[in-house]
């Protein structure tokens, strides 16, 4: 039976070249579907990848009592000392707890009425220890106590900022004294500055979050429990990865749902097209198939060969579509809600595209395959 399927498939593929236009139409249809699917999904894939790069199971985030976000000034400076007493926090070699009170500030555009600019994250003395991948690539680190900034590479690229530029902020214009990389994490879309200086300039006192490095990921539960049961504190903790996932979910879920809905409609169109094209291919091969059936070939290999032909064409299309999406979008810089990251057409996405196309091919190939296998040998040869 395998032998028969092989012979039939070979004949089918030789015939494909004769029916080159129909075959090409099928390939291009599937290619468009997969290109649209993957290019839309590259948006959320890239975003999630950037968030995952900043992930470290040792890190937890402590948030203020209201809002569940690191925006705002919900953590009073007087609470910080108590929070640092919590069990499970890792310590630096000189004995300091590895925890960093941070504050976020949206930076208004420098131009008169353009909208958008990177966020400014104020970090403290331990902030750098919590981001071991962070490296200055140009200029120098900011000095604490001075109104100066460093900018992440992605933010610099997206918002066309350079070392030496001056940014209007509360208390005057702050110079950018350096630029940094953090291995592609979301931190790279932000400005960093000294938290105390940011708070003093803004005339506010509370922090937005405290980032904490735990002794080990398992220490989280005891740490969170200690915070939530401490009568002096209203703050709560969650793993940093969970926080990042939660805050990106809204946008990524929206865009993923949109991508799948659009792709599903296109796929339905392509599916009708595939059935039509394969019906036509089977009709064109009626005599050839009947001849083989007459000399003893079984219906099943006939059906399988039609399915194999459909799948071959669809997978070729999927590869072309994936290649197009990759060439057009992979690594392309984009900004969403002030977060800057590269679009990503990953291996995982390409595998998804190939699977999607295979399912399309099988759904579209089955009715023609059944018709091919069940056709009457006598009628076909009599025409």
């Amino acid at each position, binding site marked *: 039976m395998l032998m028969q399927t092989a012979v039939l498939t070979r004949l089918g593929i030789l015939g494909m070249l004769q029916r080159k*236009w*129909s075959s*090409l*139409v099928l390939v*291009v*249809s599937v290619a*468009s*579907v997969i*290109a*649209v699917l993957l*290019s*839309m999904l590259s*948006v959320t894939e890239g975003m999630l990848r950037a968030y995952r790069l900043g992930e470290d199971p040792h890190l937890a985030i402590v948030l203020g009592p*209201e*809002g569940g976000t690191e925006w*705002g*000034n*919900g953590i009073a400076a007087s609470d910080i000392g108590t929070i640092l007493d919590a069990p499970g926090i890792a310590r630096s070699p000189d004995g300091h707890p590895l925890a960093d009170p941070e504050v*976020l*500030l*949206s930076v*208004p*555009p420098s131009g*008169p*009425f*353009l*909208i*958008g600019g990177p966020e400014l994250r104020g970090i403290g003395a331990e902030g750098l220890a919590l981001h071991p991948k962070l490296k200055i690539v140009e200029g120098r680190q900011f000095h604490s106590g001075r109104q100066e900034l460093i900018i992440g590479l992605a933010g610099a690229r997206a918002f066309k900022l350079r070392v030496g530029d001056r940014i*209007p*902020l*509360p208390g005057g214009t702050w110079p950018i004294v350096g630029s940094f990389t953090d291995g592609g994490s979301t931190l790279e879309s932000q400005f960093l500055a000294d938290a105390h200086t940011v708070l003093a300039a*803004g005339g*506010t006192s*509370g922090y*937005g979050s405290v980032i904490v490095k735990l002794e080990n990921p398992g220490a989280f539960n005891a740490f969170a429990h200690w915070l939530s049961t401490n009568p002096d504190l209203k703050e709560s903790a969650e793993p940093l990865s969970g926080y990042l996932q939660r805050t990106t979910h809204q946008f990524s*879920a*929206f*865009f*993923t*749902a*949109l991508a799948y*809905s*659009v792709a599903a*409609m*296109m796929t*339905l*169109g*392509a599916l*009708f*097209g595939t*059935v*039509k*094209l394969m*019906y*036509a291919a089977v*009709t064109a091969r009626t005599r050839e198939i009947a001849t083989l059936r007459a000399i003893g070939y079984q219906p099943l290999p006939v059906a399988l060969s039609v399915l194999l032909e459909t799948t071959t064409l669809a997978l070729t299309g999927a590869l072309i579509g994936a290649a197009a999406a990759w060439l057009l979008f992979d690594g392309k810089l*984009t*900004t*969403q*809600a002030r977060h800057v990251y590269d679009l990503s057409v990953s291996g995982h996405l390409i595998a998804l595209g190939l699977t999607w196309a295979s399912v399309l091919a099988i759904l579209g190939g089955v009715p023609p395959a059944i018709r091919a296998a069940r056709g009457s040998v006598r009628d076909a040869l009599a025409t």
Partner: protein
Amino acid sequence: MKYFPLVWAALWRKPAESVLIWLAVTVSFALFGLMVGLHATYDRLIDNARMDRLYVNARFPNASTTGILLPLALRDQIARVAGVSAVGAVHYLQGYYKDPHQRVRVRAVDEYVKNAWPELPLTAAQWQQLFATPSGVFITRNRAAMLGLKAGATLPVITPSSARADGAPSWEFHVLGVMPEMPGYESLILGNLSYVENSMPQPQQGYVGEYLIAVHDGAKANDISVQIDRELANSSTPTLTIPNKVAAIDSVNSGISVASKTWPVAGAGIFMILLLTANGLAQSVRERTPEFAVLRTVGYGQSVLTGLVLAEAAIPCVSGAAIGMGLALFLTRLPTHFLPADLASLPKPTLSVGVLAFSLACALLLALVGAVIPLLRLRRFSVIDALAGR
């Protein structure tokens, strides 16, 4: 008309294949309609935004839950800037109604907003009613339906207890009436600034969230924005002034907007259908060469044959497009809870007469382009060879 049986017979020569092509065209045009309609919605959002209205916000908003606000005293300073015709003040009160997931936002406005935002669909009598009833609100029609509210109902908006001076957990608003829809402001709830402001904790009184400004000449809006920000640069609250239209364009085009994806998606779908139609037609014409040869022999001219092929191309394309647009229209009318929850925030595609006409024109163009290759073949074929079956 007398050729109709010929075209009809050609379409039904292979019923299964014809129906499949027609279905593919229908589905693809439904997607095309949704994408073009979505694009039209974004365009309308920008068209409706006005250059002669400016928003003034604090340049360095402190993102605390209460929010640092603009002092009411700035109003006079802004009103003195040349070109400004009206300065309205707005405070946004955010909370929820019944369920924490049912967020509501009341735009509490003062009486100057009437002049600064003249498109608001309230009559003079309704404006009077609003300012005469401290806790009164007007709600747009859809929003009222979504919240299940009618004129006369109460709308308790629940906020953190720190939002009110008296520590009460909710704000009891009274629905005075329902407003017609405002494009771009689908969930608008208008309330009274003086009531909201007087109920806030003492330190926040005397501040508002935003100023709405009308200017005499939209062409000077950019200069006026710069002028306002310059005058207030050294005040206690530096400002960021943005013309409404600039903000709308920016929000539609910012980052990876959905708007930028509509054309490529619509294009890819149509390209797919173009190939499919052209291929099907070419095959049909090729297989029917003897038929065309007979027609030619009995005296039908080239133009009639051309017409036959064009009709055969146009009928499935245009009818598929029409039904597909109907399908798209149906999909946009579905209540949002039938959509995947994450898509509910997508603006509704606008399927205006213009969008429908554009789609049908595209279908016709598609049929024409798809017929080009079969027609070229028809022009060159030899009657003798065709009749001989070569």
